């Protein structure tokens, strides 16, 4: 493959086309993230910058909730790491498909928007990763994501409470849409998800005196480790 734009124009435009539905979904979800950003004390501009830099629904959500309670920088870093741990997995998966000789700056750009959706459409293409396809997707998805947060943060203060309340669940809807298909396909994931819901509920009682962030870290590590010990992947599983 030659890494020149002229040679990859068509695949670039294909990326733009595939990016449009992603962009629409992003705008709605990111809008609800903007409401949350404003509630956490961020300005609309800070929300825009945060979304442009992070491109991570769960990660930004976790980060904003840390900002809201003026948590420590270290705790914020750890919770961001945990909330975004799945990107580590996706990046590892994608690393197996990067062709030798791909320019380093292309890899740096792709890494910037390695989200569930961009990863999914990029990896679904046959053969090695063509950076230009991913660039096309990013070109439409990134502004939608960034400005969704911006407008959410502005409108969150103007919109009636009922509308804000309704938009607030968009993020959770997105989380559900990521969890459920995996749980349906894999009984072990299903069990771990149910265990997670139950333990998360139990440990949210005031009686335990632990913060939302710490709870997320501890439960994630323990439940995933138990899964890995008792239900290790067989060789060949999950080898995208």
């Amino acid at each position, binding site marked *: 493959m030659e890494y020149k734009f002229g040679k990859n124009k068509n695949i670039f435009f294909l990326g733009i086309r595939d990016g449009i539905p992603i962009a629409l979904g992003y705008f709605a979800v990111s809008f609800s993230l903007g409401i949350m950003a404003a509630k956490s004390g961020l300005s609309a501009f800070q929300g825009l910058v945060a979304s442009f830099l992070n491109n991570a629904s769960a990660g930004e959500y976790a980060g904003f909730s840390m900002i809201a309670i003026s948590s420590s920088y270290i705790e*914020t870093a750890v919770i961001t790491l945990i909330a975004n741990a799945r990107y580590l997995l996706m990046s590892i998966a994608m690393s197996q498909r990067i062709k030798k000789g791909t320019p380093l700056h292309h890899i740096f750009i792709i890494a910037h928007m390695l989200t569930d959706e961009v990863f999914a459409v990029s990896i679904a293409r046959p053969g090695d990763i063509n950076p230009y396809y991913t660039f096309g997707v990013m070109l439409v998805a990134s502004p939608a994501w960034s400005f969704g947060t911006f407008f959410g943060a502005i409108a969150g203060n103007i919109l009636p409470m009922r509308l804000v309340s309704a938009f607030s669940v968009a993020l959770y809807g997105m989380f559900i849409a990521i969890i459920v298909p995996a749980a349906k396909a894999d009984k072990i994931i299903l069990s771990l998800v149910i265990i997670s819901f139950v333990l998360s509920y139990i440990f949210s009682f005031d009686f335990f005196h632990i913060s939302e962030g710490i709870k997320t870290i501890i439960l994630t590590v323990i439940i*995933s480790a138990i899964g890995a*010990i008792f239900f290790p992947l067989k060789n060949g599983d999950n080898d995208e």
Partner: protein
Amino acid sequence: MNKWIYIFIMFAVTYLIRVLPLILIRKKLKNTFIRSFLYYVPYVTLSVMTFPAILHATMSQTSGLLSFIIGIIAAWYGANLFKVALLCCTLVFVIEYFIA
């Protein structure tokens, strides 16, 4: 606490997670425990973050709970990310119209 520092920390951590494997890993991972652990982490962490937090995101716990349950059912029967998110929002809006 400076908000910009928070934003920069979030960015630095998130970007490193994404870029390091891409530039460092050139071979397939072998350790079964690490592979299995990494495989389960995303679903467990999203589950922990979703429930019971969704109950407190809305004005009434009832609407949060119903959108949680119906969102799961819709996703189970194949609704995509965008549809589930939209459905949850609509449910909360409609339910709270009646009870709030």
